[in-house]
């Protein structure tokens, strides 16, 4: 028996909520960055629906605020967001038995949290996959629209000394464990941490891309030697 469409949508929205909590301080950081860059609030906020990617938006406005050229700021922001190419590649097989409209709309809400949620859910039925994906994606989207607006309006309301930004790495550690449901995946995560640290001086956090590519290569080699 397959669950009803509305119950899947509710499930997806509920699953997205706890993952959004760590994004709240980030929305306030975003508000401060926009204010510091001297950009009108509405223009800064427009990046939330147009770009929909926290780290990408923050990078763009930080660099524009520092007086970087449009070309430099845009390319740096896109390098920061380049891990989405990996998400697109990873999810491509699961998008194969989907209609075209869902490829267009689903791509728009493909963010870190949605990617890990859907990767850790063994959903095979295309219609259920689609509903769950859109429910989590657009729950996140709606909350991000509201909270980035609040972040811009309220600005630095949260004192920096509270250290609420630490919620972001805590969430990603939690997502990392959820995604490491096999021992070899956990090993891969640990290797990726080491490689990211080794390449952390690379500009625009490009070390992330190097770490993912190298780690996946290492894991495949290890697998080949074992079999």
């Amino acid at each position: 028996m397959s669950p009803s469409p509305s119950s899947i949508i509710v499930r997806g929205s509920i699953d997205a909520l706890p993952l959004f909590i760590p994004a709240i301080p980030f929305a306030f950081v975003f508000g401060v960055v926009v204010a510091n860059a001297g950009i009108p609030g509405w223009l800064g906020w427009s990046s939330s629906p147009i770009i929909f990617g926290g780290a990408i938006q923050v990078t763009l406005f930080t660099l524009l605020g520092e007086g970087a050229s449009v070309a430099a700021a845009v390319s740096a922001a896109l390098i920061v967001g380049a891990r989405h190419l990996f998400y697109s590649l990873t999810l491509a097989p699961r998008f194969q038995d989907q209609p075209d409209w869902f490829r267009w709309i689903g791509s728009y809400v493909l963010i870190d949290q949605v990617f890990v949620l859907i990767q850790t859910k063994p959903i095979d039925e295309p219609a259920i996959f689609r509903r769950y994906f859109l429910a989590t994606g657009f729950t996140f989207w709606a909350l991000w629209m509201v909270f980035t607006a609040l972040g811009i309006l309220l600005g630095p309301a949260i004192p920096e000394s509270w250290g609420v930004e630490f919620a972001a790495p805590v969430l990603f550690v939690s997502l990392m464990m959820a995604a490491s449901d096999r021992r070899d995946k956990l090993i891969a995560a640990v290797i990726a941490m080491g490689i990211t640290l080794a390449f952390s001086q690379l500009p625009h956090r490009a070390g992330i891309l190097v770490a993912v590519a190298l780690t996946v290569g290492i894991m495949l080699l290890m697998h080949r030697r074992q079999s």
Partner: protein
Amino acid sequence: MIATAIILTGLGSYAMRAFFIFALARYSFPPILRRALEYVAPTVMAALVISMMTSTEGKLTAGWAESIGLLLAATVAKFTGNHIFSLLAGMGSFWVIRWIM
């Protein structure tokens, strides 16, 4: 100028998310590639954590409070599979240790 930058970045980030979903819509994935893709989620998350814990000069910024907070969050996530519990454990221990030290 700002509006141009926002629109270009928006188009670029959308293109990255959509690229393989469209490019490989009718491609049959060989087993080796399927296997490789299984490692993307844990490795990107791991790389993001370290990247958030290092300065732009490549220095590790995590002290005791951060390190213990992350370890506890990982442990709780492993045994409960619940992101809220994991967040509470990570932030709680981080605040307590910072307050003691």
